[in-house]
């Protein structure tokens, strides 16, 4: 993107304009600027003078940003309802991921381990290892991946830290306290069932272990955001 629009882009994103609208606006402004520059050069101006004149004709950053910001329909959902985007949406995503992980566990149990009391037994079959591995990966990685998603969205839209932090903490706490249980009734031929609950643990030691787990998830999830924030001063165009 042309350098003159860096400030405009930052201003629009910070005002809550959705990145896709910012991208399209700046792309059209860049095309328009090129047309104006060509027109000024055809009128006999030097390239430097043509550039300056074209920028003046295009409009100042204040005017260009105000025109876009005043159109409230271009606001991103993260700006309109941050509580929903960072408080509720990650929880629904996490619930969805856990549901799929439990479904994989339950179906794998039914397919590969039909006679066992629990699916949490050593597995030797190669495909079964892969099948259960996918579910396990989803279960353990979901909080971190969702945390990265939160950090990415917050960074792209230059959001203040409050709501993304709330989302990260919620996801980390749920990720650390989620526990899967599997049991089969002692009736011949009964179907086993898988359930989940959220608990820190019965003892103080288990609780502190859970909190440590939450801290690990939080750190892993927040890591890309921290790296991005640390790198920003070195790349002003970011």
């Amino acid at each position: 993107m042309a350098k003159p629009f860096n400030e405009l882009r930052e201003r629009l994103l910070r005002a809550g304009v959705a990145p896709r609208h910012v991208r399209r606006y700046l792309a059209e402004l860049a095309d328009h600027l090129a047309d104006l520059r060509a027109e000024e050069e055809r009128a006999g101006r030097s390239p430097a003078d043509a550039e300056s004149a074209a920028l003046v004709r295009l409009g100042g950053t204040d005017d260009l940003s105000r025109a876009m910001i005043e159109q409230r329909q271009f606001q991103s959902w993260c700006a309109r309802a941050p509580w929903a985007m960072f408080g509720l949406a990650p929880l629904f995503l996490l619930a969805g991921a856990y549901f799929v992980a439990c479904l994989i566990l339950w179906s794998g149990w039914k397919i590969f381990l039909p006679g066992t009391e629990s699916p949490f037994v050593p597995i030797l079959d190669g495909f079964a290892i892969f099948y259960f591995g996918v579910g396990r990966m989803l279960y353990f990685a979901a909080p971190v991946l969702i945390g990265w998603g939160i950090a990415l969205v917050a960074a792209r839209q230059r959001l203040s830290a409050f709501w993304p932090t709330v989302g990260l903490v919620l996801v980390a706490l749920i990720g650390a306290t989620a526990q899967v249980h599997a049991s089969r009734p002692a009736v011949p031929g009964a179907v086993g069932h898988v359930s989940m609950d959220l608990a820190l643990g019965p003892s103080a030691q288990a609780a502190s272990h859970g909190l440590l787990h939450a801290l690990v998830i939080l750190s892993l999830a927040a890591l890309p955001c921290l790296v991005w924030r640390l790198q920003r001063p070195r790349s002003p165009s970011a």
Partner: protein
Amino acid sequence: MAARETNPNFMNGVPELLILRLLQQEEMYGYEIVHAIRSRTEAVVAVGEGVVYPVLHGLERDGALRSRRKNVNGRSRIYYSVTAAGSRRLADLSEAWSNLAAAIQKMLKGGRHGEAIQ
């Protein structure tokens, strides 16, 4: 970017009307639209040229305009044209502005208040 003097707030709504009127005749891209506005209003209507895009995007989002990407002379342009909803909106806006302009004209020519405000 350098500052430029533009028309004040009473121009609100004018770019929308002019854009719809222009695009009703033929599809255009942003630079063409600004040029056409400037030439047809004899430069009386002066807006920062880039300000036309939020208006175009807003009209498109409202369903009054549609856009399509087109390659012209090796450059990709976004062309805008009026939809049926846009034509209806233009008719409403034109009527409102004509009434307003007539009323203001009457006021400026010294007509009675009761005649001007209908």
